[in-house]
């Protein structure tokens, strides 16, 4: 029986702790007992895989699928999905969701007094190509207030969700926009101690993917966990 090769542990400070008191929702939901370290087994180094056809051909364009065009500034968000060993991850599903241009989510719990857009749902999917590339067309999400503390506002963001090749590589994160003045005051953006790791959540404006007279381009690469050295025979 081959021993399974572990995935690399995160560099200290680059992932959030469960408890981050400035983010009030974490106080009653963060586990209080230490997590139990376990070795990787076949259960964690395998994981769900999906046929690329599960994603509809135009599911990566959030401006389509309605009677008209959504309001707001059209943007193109693209990038690569790599592992920590710089290998591109092909055929990986990327899911995104976001608020509309006015900062309102199409969700019954969102009671923010900003208009819904009948032409925007805010949900998209893409599959990475052989080089790990993905691309979304969407509109720039608005900032919005929340009740975490007095006069609390979320920095503009797009939620990202990726499976990668194994249960161990699952990642859910958020992408931010360069120059957003709300980032220093957003406890969710700031939940990770390491400043460089935090700043890697900020996309970069990109001329190359900006389409003339159509849409600005933003680049956002995602790094999933990489493997330790290859398995050894027991």
């Amino acid at each position, binding site marked *: 029986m081959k021993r399974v090769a572990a995935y690399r542990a995160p560099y200290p400070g680059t992932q959030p702790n469960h408890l981050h008191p400035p*983010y009030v929702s974490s106080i009653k939901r963060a586990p209080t*007992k230490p997590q139990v370290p376990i070795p990787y087994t076949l259960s964690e180094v395998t994981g769900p895989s999906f046929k690329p056809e599960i994603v509809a051909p135009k599911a990566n364009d959030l401006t389509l699928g309605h009677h008209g065009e959504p309001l707001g500034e059209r943007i193109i968000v693209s990038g690569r999905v790599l592992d920590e060993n710089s290998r591109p991850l092909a055929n990986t599903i990327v899911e995104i969701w976001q608020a509309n241009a006015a900062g309102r989510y199409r969700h019954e719990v969102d009671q923010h007094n900003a208009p819904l857009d009948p032409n925007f749902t805010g949900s998209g999917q893409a599959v990475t190509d052989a080089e790990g590339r993905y691309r979304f067309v969407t509109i720039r999400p608005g900032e919005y207030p929340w009740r975490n503390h007095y006069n609390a506002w979320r920095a503009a963001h797009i939620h990202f969700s990726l499976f990668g090749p194994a249960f161990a590589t699952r990642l859910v994160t958020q992408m931010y926009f360069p120059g957003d003045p709300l980032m220093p005051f957003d406890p969710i953006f700031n*939940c990770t101690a390491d400043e460089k790791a935090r700043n890697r959540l900020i996309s970069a404006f990109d001329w190359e993917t900006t389409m003339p007279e159509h849409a600005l381009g933003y680049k956002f690469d995602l790094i999933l966990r990489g493997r330790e050295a290859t398995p050894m025979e027991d």
Partner: protein
Amino acid sequence: MSLQATTSQTVGPFFKIGFDWLNRDNLVGEGVSGERVTIQGRIFDGDGVPVPDAILEIWQANAHGKYDHPEDTQDKPLEPGFKGYGRVPVTAQGVFRLATIKPGPVPGPNGKEQAPHLVISVFMRGVLRRLVTRIYFPDEPRNAADFILNLVEPSRRSTLIAKKTAGAPGTLEWNVVLQGPDETVFFDLGL
């Protein structure tokens, strides 16, 4: 030069918008072998209140103990009707329900078989990176020697084992308790 994994962030309260398209609360397709089970439960916060905005993801082997994944090279059959993936949101009342089969045993560390189990990711508002746990099965003799269960202090192992439901054969109850004396065991996989 190696890269560092992207920082995890919470799914927030509105994940339904992005996740619904791939929800799966019934893992059992046509012609699938194995013992049918329904696993249901709730997720309790630090005040003991059921969480109405969480989602579980499930990964498991089929009844032969085979994962539908290229890294599972065991000489065991796959079944086309069983992929082993589930994604189940809790309802507004805070309940989740999952229909699946009891998986077969899969290899564990030191070449020993693991007891049948599901691996689980838990996501919700307020949780900054996913919580990783497992569901084991009641009346399962392999539990006693399971490598992973034996890494858990004995008094907490029961949080990982689903319970039978009186009067409802095939229905198991398994709850997630986020804080307190009955806190569910969560595993550290590094992330």
